């Protein structure tokens, strides 16, 4: 158990604070983007920003970056299933 712990990367306090500042900034950005009347950007913008935020939280706060492969696969498999399922339901609702 000890070796496994020693092998893991320890993230510094400063990294967390920097990421937090980035997240705050992105939140502000998403509200601003949503305020501009720019058609499709109104919808895509906030969602893309939300995804970037989620990736930061996953990678840094939840240490997925330094976690070994399998754990990353857990999330990737889940995402694939959700996206594909969503697309299949979309193929019904959008073409009804």
């Amino acid at each position, binding site marked *: 158990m000890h070796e496994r712990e020693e092998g893991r990367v320890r993230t510094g306090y400063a990294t967390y604070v920097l990421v937090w500042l980035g997240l705050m900034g992105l939140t502000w950005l998403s509200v601003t983007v949503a305020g501009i009347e720019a058609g499709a950007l109104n919808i895509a913008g906030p969602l893309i920003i939300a995804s970037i935020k989620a990736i930061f939280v996953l990678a840094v706060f939840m240490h997925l970056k330094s976690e070994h492969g399998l754990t990353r696969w857990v999330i990737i*498999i889940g995402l694939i299933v959700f996206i*594909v399922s969503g697309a*299949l*339901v979309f193929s*019904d609702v959008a*073409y009804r």
Partner: protein
Amino acid sequence: MANEGAGYLGTEGRPGGISSWIFSTDHKRIGILYLVSILSFFVVGVSLGFLMRLELISHGPTIMEASTYNSVFTLHGVVMLFLFIIPAAPSIFGNFFLPIMIGANDVSFPRLNLLSWWFYMAGAALALATLALGPADTGWTFYAPYSLRTGTYVSLAVFAVFVLGLSSILTGINFVTTVHRLRAPGMGFWRLPLFVWAVYATAWIQIVATPILGVNLLLVIAERVFGIGVFDPAKGGDPILYQHLFWIYSHPAVYIMIIPGMGIISEIIPVFARKVIFGYRAIAYSSLGIAGVGSLVWGHHMFVSGSSYTAGVIFSFFTFLVAIPSAIKVFNWVGTLYKGSIVLGTPFLFALAFIFLFSIGGLTGLILGALSINVHLHDTYFVVSHFHYIKFGGAGFAFFAGLHYWLPKMTGRMYNTKVANWSCLVLFIGFNLLFFPMLILGIEGMPRRYFDYLPQYSTLQIVSIVGSWVLVTGLIMMFVNLIRGAFRGPRAPFNPWGSATLEWQIPSPPQRENFEKIPEVTKGPYDFRGLR
């Protein structure tokens, strides 16, 4: 290998008090807990099904009213699916044998494992409580908008299924973690017995799909209690979306039922053919393939629901695609039998029955997967027959095969094999007598879930009802024989079938700790050299 008095069952003749069982974190005792509880609910489910058939013996109300009939088929579905066939193979055999087969002393989270059983019992209690209060009459699918309006205890039934789902998720998490973390030295992924592969693939479906059913059921409760409107057309909601969320789980759930069954068959076939299994990797990959593609076919339950034609074409395509990994398995089993030195043991007979019945189930599934034919056959007896061939003829017979294969290991005693062989034959005849006429009735247009029928269907209905009697006779024969064997049968040797997997290399019944020393695995699971 004499092990008198030191098995996990407790000291000789004294299995210990009830609390040493229901609070035990030993995976073997939890397996037995599941065995006893799941089989009890199976008896309830069989009785309900038997009464449903009996009701149809003459026209009009015979032994129950139409509304009672609706409740009976609902409860039959809920009990058989959520209390019996979904947990049967993974929770009983998975719990008991998965750790032993990979050379571990327990699962990764033993306490969570026990909690999972308690959730199972809580869910079962809630489901059966509706029986006393006023059972739901929606069918096991709880389709909106009817399930939102009916005055019966739908919320309680739905919550029961939610709790059962929680139990299923915990079991899944436990198995995936166990397979990744607790394999014995030398037990690489390509040395895993195929049953372990199957349970592993199943566990992934349990983890990924079950929450979606869970939230769907919560939405039904919220809809009934608060009226949030998402499935209610009057408020702009869409009942078809209910069906989507329901089948996103419930179709893969069919694979939760059948994949571990296929795993059991993959264990039994090579042992009784005395031959290395043909296409080990193909079978392992096809388990993952079924789990993956099988998650994309749910729309074939909704071809006539009003979902789009585009969706119909896509789902029909995937439905045909999922037949490929299933067929790969069947071909590999048959390939294993070719030129094997076959021993006709009881588990093997059940396995053969499985292959036959599952093939009928699979092929009728392809018929239903075709968009145009589906319009004609949807919601008829053809569908009922098809899914019984898959779930009972497939998963159920595989489960019985597993019982006959592993019970000597679990109890340390042998049943009467002659009676067991006869019960297999009676079950096989009864099953086909019961469900084959339904295929014809369905093509002739007999709708499912109807309390009455037109005179021209009488003959085949009667044949089917007589079939249900034969089937029940077979079940009684089988269970009486197995229970007698478990308590009073002669002592079973540690490896009666000459199997090569790890669970047969330890005493019957296993000791409290599976392995005194964690074994070093040096050969594959179907390498019979040096055995018998």
